[in-house]
């Protein structure tokens, strides 16, 4: 370790649990932050300041003026810029020894399975349930620990999932909530994500250093208005871990080109601008009507779900399987183009 680094991190190197060895562990650690919003900004700045070696930032969004009350890496001149790039600029100024990798894209299952193996810990800074389940399942499949936090107005939740084969998000919340209530709709106290994000950074650092008690199998809840707080204990549920693992098969990755056969096809496009072979049994339910009309989908034969490109149909399958327990849905990976006519 250089004298500069020693000096820079001296206040934490002084701690007997950390020392020079601990600082070296931090320098070798790779942490991916999914979602660079209120939580993500807060986590990122503390991990960068602490000297974590490689930080990945993933977010598909641009900086908006309404982000500035809580997303403290951004300034007024960043409005309109990619969040990941604006965050990187700020973070590099804080600590140029840290490598920052940016991914300006929305997390998909494919991206998760490609990116997660390259990192040690995944941090959840997302603002919707679908992505939280996606992170969970991809972490189970790639055997990564993830540091969860979520916020609601003045309240926050924190937990560590899939830590040393511990409980997962599905063990805590087996059933996916269909409604996402975002900060944009209901409001949020600006300091709330900063507090929870700082706690996430603290947990990530403890996991890297292997010190203290990690919040695995426990859900911490805090209400900043009332100071009410709780630590709830929960257990691993093997069947829920299986659900997470099976989402890999559900996605049916690298399936190759689809060879049409005798089963049922489900077209979820809004407009049917091009039909497949008229001999095939095709059911047309636009994506937006799936909740209302899922009962029309047969459960006893394989159903091949398709859209234009294969990505919305994948989401449709996730929703249908999650909410209504379908087990016979297969995604047509390349979309309608890949069905032989």
């Amino acid at each position, binding site marked *: 370790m250089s004298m500069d680094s020693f000096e820079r991190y001296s206040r934490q190197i002084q701690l007997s649990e950390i020392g020079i060895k601990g600082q070296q562990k931090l320098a070798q650690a790779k942490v991916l932050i999914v979602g660079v919003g209120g939580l993500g900004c807060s986590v990122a700045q503390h991990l960068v300041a602490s000297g974590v070696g490689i930080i990945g930032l993933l977010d598909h969004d641009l900086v908006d003026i309404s982000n500035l009350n809580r997303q403290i890496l951004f300034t007024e001149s960043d409005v309109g810029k990619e969040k990941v790039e604006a965050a990187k600029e700020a973070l590099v100024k804080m600590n140029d020894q840290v490598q920052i990798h940016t991914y300006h894209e929305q997390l998909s299952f494919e991206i998760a399975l490609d990116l997660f193996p390259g990192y040690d810990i995944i941090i959840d800074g997302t603002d919707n349930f679908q992505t939280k389940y996606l992170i969970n399942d991809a972490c189970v499949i790639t055997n990564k620990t993830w540091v969860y936090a979520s916020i609601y107005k003045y309240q926050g*939740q924190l937990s560590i999932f899939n830590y040393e084969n511990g409980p997962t998000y599905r063990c805590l919340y087996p059933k996916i909530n269909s409604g996402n209530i975002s900060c944009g709709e209901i409001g949020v106290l600006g300091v709330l994500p900063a507090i929870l994000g700082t706690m996430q950074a603290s947990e990530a650092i403890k996991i890297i250093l292997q010190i203290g008690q990690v919040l695995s199998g426990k859900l911490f809840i805090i209400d900043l208005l009332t100071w009410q707080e709780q630590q709830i204990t929960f257990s691993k549920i093997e069947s829920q871990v299986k659900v997470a693992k099976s989402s890999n098969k559900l996605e049916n990755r690298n399936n190759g080109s689809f060879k049409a056969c005798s089963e049922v096809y489900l077209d979820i496009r809004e407009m049917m601008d091009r039909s497949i072979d008229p001999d095939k049994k095709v059911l047309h339910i636009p994506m937006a009507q799936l909740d209302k009309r899922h009962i029309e989908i047969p459960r006893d034969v394989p159903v091949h779900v398709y859209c234009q490109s294969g990505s919305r149909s994948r989401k449709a399958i996730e929703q249908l399987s999650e909410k209504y327990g379908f087990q016979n849905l297969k995604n047509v990976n390349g979309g309608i183009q890949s069905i032989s006519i």
Partner: protein
Amino acid sequence: MEIKVKYFGSIAEETGKAEETISLQNGISEVQEFIAFIFKKYGLIDEGTVQVAVNQVIQTEGRIQYGDEVAFLPPYAGG
């Protein structure tokens, strides 16, 4: 029989309170029955996504008894 109840997130808004003590009559003795009782009392819609903890442990089955603390914990999505 008195049960201390805590409500979090949107549930606290729907019930209009963060906590209360409820005196149980009419033979409620199971956690499931108690959850149903609270949902009915406040007209809550159960999507099955709200978790319940009894004495700080996630628990949706088993018996409930005097002095227990029950917490209703909806998932949060914000970030």
